[in-house]
């Protein structure tokens, strides 16, 4: 979310989910919303039934794309050129919001100059979409009074992920589609509490509430509160930790409720890294592929067995409530951390999660007014919520951006790290499906979800299928420069010829053996959406 932080100053959904149903035009890019964020898709469909128009930019003809007014089946990895082309058309046709640009933004000329140098025909050719389609989309979005852009990991999981996000922000600011209700830029978070984990400072460079560790004022504040001397150097990112290999920087890891063996790119490298640690501690609810490699595995309580809060995509902090006591001998993660901390000589004495939240609210300004008693008696509060009198913030950037003025950051096309060639002729896109969630640790243990979608399928265009002699249900071997897996094919026109799609939910088909470790320079987000593979029938 580095992209939105540099342009708006805050990397979160600017709207509430419910506002989407009042939009007039919705631009969905890099998001298979109806499968990954069903409640957002529900708002999109409601808006359409009320007359709103939908633009979908996605290489695949997803369910959402089939219902869209305009579907631009973009060539993967060419989002920036496509968005730039839209902006150029908006400028050419006088659809830019000049007043907004003047009052609320900076560096417009930087963007304008870049756009004027653009060759529209050439750009369109790059994206694989015809110019007329791009023009129609630009006109629709540019003319709307209330327009929302939703994007997800299809935008960020690229080497140019940050650039993609900046281009989206540019488009929104160019047309003044921010600051208002029912209008904005909405990154949809992949997991239930990604937003919260970021807010809480589970990041190598920031304390809770995005206070940088290398700024002395912030660090001193936390040192005083925690009675400890704190390191000032930003730490290693996830990829740096899990991809160190044999001679990696780490000797010990504590992994709480994550399954990097299945979720991270280049599986072999992750396994090598973990296997070479002197000590690996894992706390989880199931014996995941990662836990199997640990020296110590601690049984954790599930969400139904603990109290606390989650923060959703729209920044709504809401209660998780305990329904039953932890199963067997399992313990909540907070109990585990507190016990461990005590044994390390640092007492963490909290009598309840509510007390932890009180400490958070004192140290994290955006959570300033959030205590359990307030959350208990409401549907949660949306940050920023500065103090106990504040009623939360449904949409961001009213009157001013978090960083003051919104900044246009001109971006240019950056080709993907690996594109199909003669040896590896197919472009593999990875993502999620409706019935499963992440590495399947929870959802694959549900009887009905597994009945509905119990195995990985590789979406393959029927034309490609014919050429390879592959029919639906046949097993194919999929090989990249990094590894190979076997997977059942499903012939469908959802994907274009030459492009294939599959999921990372299933440990039997660890697609991350194939994916590439190339990542976005700023956000460290791996390029899951594009790698080159070779296919053959087994």
């Amino acid at each position: 979310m580095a992209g939105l932080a540099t342009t708006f100053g805050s990397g979160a959904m600017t709207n509430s989910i419910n506002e989407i149903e009042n939009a007039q035009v919705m631009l969905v890019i890099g998001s298979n919303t109806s499968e990954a964020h069903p409640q957002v898709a529900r708002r999109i469909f409601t808006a359409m039934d009320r007359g709103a128009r939908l633009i979908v930019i996605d290489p695949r003809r997803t369910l959402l794309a089939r219902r869209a007014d305009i579907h631009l089946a973009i060539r993967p990895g060419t989002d920036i050129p496509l968005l730039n082309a839209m902006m150029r058309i908006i400028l050419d046709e006088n659809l830019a919001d000049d007043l907004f640009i003047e009052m609320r933004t900076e560096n417009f000329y930087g963007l304008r100059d870049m756009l004027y140098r653009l060759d529209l025909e050439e750009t369109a050719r790059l994206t694989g979409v015809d110019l007329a389609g791009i023009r129609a989309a630009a006109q629709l979005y540019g003319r709307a009074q209330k327009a929302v852009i939703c994007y997800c990991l299809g935008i960020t999981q690229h080497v140019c992920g940050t650039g993609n996000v900046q281009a989206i922000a540019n488009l929104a600011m160019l047309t003044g589609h921010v600051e208002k209700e029912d209008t904005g830029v909405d990154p949809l978070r992949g997991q239930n509490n990604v937003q919260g984990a970021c807010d809480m400072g589970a990041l190598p460079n920031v304390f809770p509430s995005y206070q940088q560790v290398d700024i002395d004022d912030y660090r001193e504040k936390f040192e005083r509160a925690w009675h400890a001397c704190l390191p000032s150097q930003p730490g290693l990112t996830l990829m740096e930790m899990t991809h160190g290999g044999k001679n990696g920087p780490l000797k010990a890891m504590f992994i709480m409720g994550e399954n990097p063996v299945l979720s991270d790119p280049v599986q072999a490298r992750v396994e090598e890294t973990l296997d070479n640690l002197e000590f690996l501690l894992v706390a989880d609810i199931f014996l995941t592929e990662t836990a199997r490699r640990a020296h110590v595995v601690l049984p954790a309580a599930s969400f139904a067995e603990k109290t606390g809060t989650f923060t959703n995509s729209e920044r709504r902090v809401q209660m998780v409530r305990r329904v039953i006591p932890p199963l067997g001998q399992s313990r909540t993660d907070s109990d585990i951390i507190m016990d461990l901390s005590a044994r390390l000589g640092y007492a963490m004495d909290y009598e309840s999660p509510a007390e932890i939240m009180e400490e958070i609210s004192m140290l994290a300004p955006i959570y300033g007014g959030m205590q359990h008693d307030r959350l208990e008696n409401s549907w949660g509060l949306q940050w920023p919520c500065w103090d106990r009198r504040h009623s939360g913030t449904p949409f961001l950037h009213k009157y001013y951006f978090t960083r003051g003025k919104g900044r246009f950051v001109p971006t240019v096309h950056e080709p993907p790290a690996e594109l199909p060639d003669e040896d590896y002729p197919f472009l593999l896109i990875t993502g999620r499906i409706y019935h499963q969630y992440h590495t399947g640790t929870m959802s694959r243990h549900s009887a009905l979800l597994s009945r509905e979608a119990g195995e990985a399928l590789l979406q393959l265009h029927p034309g490609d299928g014919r050429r390879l002699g592959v029919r639906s249900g046949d097993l194919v071997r999929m090989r990249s420069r990094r590894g190979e897996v076997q997977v059942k094919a499903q012939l469908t026109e959802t994907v274009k010829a030459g492009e294939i799609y599959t999921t990372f939910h299933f440990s039997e088909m660890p697609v991350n053996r194939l994916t590439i470790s190339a990542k976005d320079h700023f956000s460290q987000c791996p390029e899951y959406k594009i790698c080159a593979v070779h296919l053959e029938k087994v």
Partner: protein
Amino acid sequence: MTDKYILKKDHLLPLLRKLKKTHRLIAPVQNRHGDTLFTVIDNLDEVRIDLENQAQNSLKQFFFPQQETLFSYSNPAGDSYHFEPVAEEIPPTLYFGVRPCDLAAVLYLDVVFLKNAKDPNYLQKRQNSILVGLNCNDPFASCFCNATRNGPFTDCGFDLQLTDLGDRFLVEYDRSRGQEIISQWRQFFAQAGEQDVKAQYQAFLEARGKFKLQVHLDQAVKKLAEDEVPDSVWEELSMRCQDCGGCAYICPTCTCFTISDLQTSDHAGERIRSWDACTFSGFTRMAGGHNPVDRQMRGIEKRFRHKLQFDVKKDNRPSCVGCGRCVNICFGGTDIVRFINMTCCENS
């Protein structure tokens, strides 16, 4: 003399307190979050019984729970395999504040679970139940029980039935158990007079005029019976369906279920049944992978046909009770009202 009675509103709580001594009490309760659900009431003084809003769940959840154990099994070794029925005592239960749609739904559940074969779990719960109904003076925004002809007032399915007449309830009974309650707690009930019965009729007339939705259910039933629903309708609806199963789960008359084993240890487990939805593709997919239903085109067809065609053919009435719970909850906007409108309005 009529066999109708008057219960003063002030006496409702005292009456429930008496009944609760011998019965588990389940009534619509508004919780602290603001949602109204049929809830088991432990302490009458700590809950707010809500007769203003529709309960978001129906009685289905109690008679036919989302997940329930049919029996437990153990197999300590390959050559032994034992089955034990579950011994769960269902206490006598009084359901209070049940609307006509939910009463009609229970009558339909009776047909499903007791007609072909007597389902033991259902039967036990049903035999132990007393239903106290409440006629609807103010139909809710999504209600269309006038079209399904089981509301807003009803004359069957309850043991006792209340009609709100302002400061008092008119009380009727339909079964002996209802009559027993009246005779046992005679001090709460006064004989109703002519004007009370008139007031009830007046309330009925007014309620009938307050529906906000107009749903041409009869026409849809007729078109289905005559096979006049074009494929394009099914295709459009099926494309809109997002496969959540919510319409079936929330419906008081959708009763499809699946059966599976829940392993509790290496050598023991329980056979459980759980709600299922005919809209799921796994619902009809066979072990070898063959699926006789094409979900993309026809996923949603069987649900509407079942409710509005097959059940009409069998029982002479549709099994949609017009409670409106599924209206506006569909992710893709393809609820039964949209289907009826599409078949009846758009092509005429």
